């Protein structure tokens, strides 16, 4: 414990500055959300992550957002356990036939206003699993999508960029 306190005092935080949202899609979304989201939700968003058939690679990078380097919560973004507490559904995977209903139910359980973010190539358009008998081929095939964050998996910095854009900063 002593070393921990000393380290914290002497070494300073590991947390890195936030990446800027430079992407056109992100800017447009930020502008669109600016009014509604800010007015109703203030400067914080609750995120419910749903794995709809991911290989788990995307989840690992989403997890990384909570480590000291990225420290997601400093932006007012936090992961919540229930869709009933969520403003944003962060969906990964190509939406397998076996997860389709669970995803729809999770969406239905999320109170409005709500946004759907597709994270990762699989969620964006099915990725390598598009065309399989077992997949819908992306979140768009099942739910209206507000933001796509491509990458296989998207790096934590890329994810952070997209999520910050949701706050319209």
């Amino acid at each position, binding site marked *: 414990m002593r*070393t921990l306190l000393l380290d914290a005092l002497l070494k300073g935080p*590991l947390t890195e500055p936030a990446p800027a949202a430079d992407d056109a899609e992100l800017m447009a979304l930020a502008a669109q959300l600016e009014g509604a989201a800010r007015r109703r939700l203030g400067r914080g968003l609750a995120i419910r*992550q*749903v*794995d*709809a*058939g*991911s*290989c*788990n*690679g*995307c*989840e*690992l*990078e*989403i*997890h*990384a957002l*909570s*480590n*000291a*380097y990225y420290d997601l919560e400093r932006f007012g973004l936090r*992961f919540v*356990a*229930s*869709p009933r507490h969520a403003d944003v559904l962060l969906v990964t*995977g*190509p939406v*397998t*036939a*076996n*997860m*389709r*209903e*669970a995803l729809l*139910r*999770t969406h239905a359980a999320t109170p409005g206003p709500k946004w759907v973010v597709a994270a990762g190539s699989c969620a964006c358009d099915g*990725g*390598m*699993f598009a*065309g*399989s*008998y*077992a*997949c819908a081929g992306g979140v768009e095939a099942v739910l209206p999508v507000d933001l796509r964050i491509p990458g*296989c*998996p998207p*790096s934590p910095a890329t994810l952070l960029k997209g999520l910050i854009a949701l706050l319209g900063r």
Partner: protein
Amino acid sequence: MPALFNVLASGRIRPDHRPWLRAEVDAALWCALAQQLAEGRWTLLGLWGDAGAVHMALLDATGGAVGVASLACADGTFPSVGRLHAPAQRLERTITDLFGLTPVDAPDTRPWLDHGRWPVSRPLAARPGAPEAAPYAFLPVEGEGLHEVAVGPVHAGIIEPGHFRFTANGEAVVRLEERLGYVHRGVEGLMAGASVAQGAALAGRVCGDSTVAYALAFARAVEAALGVAAPERAQWLRGLMAELERLANHIGDIGAVCNDAAFPRLLAPCAVLREQVLRAAEAGFGQRMMKDRIVPGGVTADLAPAGAARIRALVSTARAALPELISIYDGTASLQDRTAGTGFARPDLVARFGCGGFVGRASGRGFDARRVLPYAPYDALTFAVPVLDGGDVNARVWVRIKEVEQSLGLVTQMLDRMPEGPLGVDLPVPGAPCEGLALVEGFRGDVLAFVRLDAEGRIARCHLRDPSWFQWPVLEAAIEGNIIADFPLCNKSFNCAYAGVDL
């Protein structure tokens, strides 16, 4: 000659299968092998379907040999192995779901991967059928005072989807029944007819935390089929990537297990250390998880010029950080109170199911593919395979701590002695169908890959077997008698794959 080869030799040996033996056997020999599995003479490594046939991979642990027995299913049936040997049951249910082949006298005939949601049934059979949807019959529960708790597929945390049906008496779990298959993406269907390059990319996307292990298993199976070997430098770079992957997962999970015991004090530094591993991997190989870096024939990226120094720096950082993390883990009574004695995996069950990885090695089963069936570069490196017999959450954490130490040593050895040379060889066009099998040690245990190529070198059949096929059932047993509140802790200490087994 290993005993397994002698037994298989009475079948018809396939000359186009490498590097071990595959024999076409008759129903009598198939049943005899199943009986010997049940007697503990062999360990089941895999059981999978094909067009009109089933294959069973066996390990002869004493002889360090692997063999495959194949049985033609002329009438669409085969004698059930699961009838005698429980570890085969879910694999047989999968064969029925995907190929429509029926295990005769199987004790459990419920579907496994097929939830009645696909547009077809038996998608990999020559003639797929119409979808069949029937409500899933969970095992019946009877008894006074028992209640059921259903959890999933969507969980509270950021984890993969699966359904857990607990039967509890008060707080104590009397039975857990797992239902998986939610992330079935049809990997083996997409593999059929794909090029080797597409197959490698798909293999790397089966199970995200083991992308290196899967790509390596697939590459080695293709290379075995074609009778080629990756150049030495490529093999060593693959080893380096595999150990970095092991480090990232072990370190991250040690923190996560402690977090599930309500001790985030260790989650934070472990998450930082894991991030440092991923950043070193990115500096070395251009991608945090080293996805798409291993392909049949070699590797696609050399170690970046600054990469070696960056990885060495990581090793020193980790070596400096570990003693304190270990002393916190070992010296916090409230944490030990949660991990010691919890989630006991019985050694006899672990041996019967052939649990690989730290689940096996924490319950006395010392199998490690790097040691028992050594492949490059491990045959030239020095490392220990830590084995404990505690069988509880604590033992699984300790095995992983010790494996972190071993992997750090392996990384240093590989950097010190990295051979020079080319990064890949061109793959020949086979000209005739050929097959290969590979077994590779991922962080979770041994990943099996079977690949059959057609004459043009396209994939005719590819089967990938995740280590968790044989770990999930043991988790059901390990949770018995524990309180429901300890399930996340037990579950995390096993850390079974969902995507890997759902395919």
